């Protein structure tokens, strides 16, 4: 798992474009938190990614016109989020259940 912090101007669709960079690659989004930060906004993502995808994601995020900064973070940042310690999440569980049903 890798943590990312992306700062952006909260214009129409910018958060969705940031998320689409992950979803178009089939990367699930188990943790997303967007909030005001300074003069703009920041979204924190936790993603299961490989090294190649990390590079692709950064470049895609910088290609979004209202993204102002993108950087990797530390997993320690997540200790404050108790929700992350819970079994997770409906999307992943659903995929696994469907896969099991399909192969049964």
């Amino acid at each position, binding site marked *: 798992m890798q943590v990312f912090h992306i700062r952006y101007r909260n214009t*129409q*669709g910018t958060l*969705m*474009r940031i998320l689409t960079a992950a979803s178009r690659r089939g990367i699930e989004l188990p943790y997303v938190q967007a909030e005001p930060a300074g003069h703009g906004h920041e979204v924190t993502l936790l993603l299961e990614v490989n090294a190649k995808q990390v*590079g*692709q994601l950064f*470049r*895609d995020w910088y290609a979004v*016109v209202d993204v102002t900064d993108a950087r990797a973070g530390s997993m320690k940042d997540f200790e404050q989020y108790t929700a992350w310690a819970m079994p997770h999440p409906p999307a992943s569980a659903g995929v696994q259940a469907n896969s099991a049903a399909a192969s049964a």
Partner: protein
Amino acid sequence: MLRGADIVLRCLRAEGADLVFGYPGGAIMPLYDALEGSGVRHILTRHEQGAVFAAEGYARITGEVGVAIATSGPGATNLVTGIADAKMDSVPLVCLTGQVRTPLIGTDAFQETDVFGLTLSLTKWSRLVRTLEEIPAVIAEAFYWARSGRPGPVVIDLPVDLLKAKMEFRGPVEFHPQPRPSQNNAEPVFADTAITLLQNAKKPVALVGAGAKLSGAIDQLRQLLDHLQIPTFATVHGLGAVEQRAPYYLGMVGMHGTRAANMALDETDLLLVFGARLDDRVTGDPIRFAPNARIVHFEIDPAQLDRVRPCELPVVGDLAETIPAFHSVLNRAALPDWSAWRAVACGAERAEPDPRGLAQPTKQFLDELFSRLPANNVIVADVGQHQMWAAQRYRFSTPRGFITSGGLGAMGFALPAAIGVQLARPDTCVLCVSGDGGIQMNIQELATVRRLGLPIKIVIVDNKYLGMVRQWQQLFYNRNYAETDLSDNPDFVDIAKAYKIHAWRLGEDALRQWPVSQETGDALERFLKSPEPELLVFECHPEANVFPMVPAGAALSELMLEED
């Protein structure tokens, strides 16, 4: 007081968009009501996809922003293929879509679709306009992003009530983007590294993509290549950027590229990429793409770097700036003598692939046709076998002389795109080359051609199959021609005549003698010189194939020169 619709049109004119393409409908009616006297010329196509491809054709030939207009719901969804096409091929495009009244948005109202959401991943930028007052700023920003950096499509969704509402209009505004971290490293430090890589290279090559044309860096690129004298090849969108008679030029690279280009790419130890995305049609198997090469990638869009293969040296910036910066430092550097490598690469087998194949008459036909083109010409190709034959046979007179849907590969592109090209270049001979499959995807635009009296020359290479798919079925699916048989095609000559477009047919028999008969030659001359639209159906062998061919997922070195 002006209506929102009047303000939109004034802002379009302020951006230089005085020619637009579209199709009216309920939610966009106020804009159409305001057209007369606005100074904006509207071209009515017969389908919204025709409008967006025509706008693309206009943008691709001029380098200016193309504008397409559609109503809400189905009108907007019909634009989506063109928007995706513009994204892939870096075409500056502004799409204006009508939307249901503001209070109805989100209620699943009649002809409501979430076009903003639908197109998020296909656009550089988009806006659902929420107030009348923001219209001027939104249009200014839309044009800015469509043009800037790597060009691309933007969408403006306009609720119908805002188009009808009135306000005091003080005039168009300019957009000034907020500063963001620069990723441009076009300074001598990159050039020093690139030169060190060059000095250590024994087999350097250059690959040229569309970026060289989009940045207007053709002259700078040609000067650099003349200096380097290294084997050079182009992607399908890069064709025309390199002087075709240059002794180091090896032609098109990739799936249907030349053997010489693909072999040089396979052997190189240093690959200079100028404005190309390196998609899978160019690289083949990315793991075995240029396996021995270090890569220096000149590219304006950082999102394209390292996408397929990591590069040793990314050079992010406009090629019009980075190439001269590189060249100026290069002028002071001592370079190795690569003449032996150049001789090997350029001396690779260049004989006609598959000379006794079933495609030979079609290739001869295209040679005959292209040899008779006036100097001032543009080819607009659809998608499929004819596209690749045309790309292989056409001799470029201008950098933007070959227009096609390369990245998306959207069948049905050519005819409407040719309309946009011909309107932008009324004195140019525009030759639309399509297939019997592709032409039927937007054949309704023959009505637009006739209505405008555009002298477009339309060639349908008719093999009565979805030819490229059939070729793959033949080569990789044991000749199982599943659902690719189009032998029940309509008579295209009769169809053209119904649209009051002169049409005729040419069979392969006419190409069996070499050179062609005086009669056939004269007919082709008349076809190209006619001041009216013309349509020619060339009947191609049903099992003609395009070679060379690199099978999907294979290495470039595994190209097939003929059917095994």
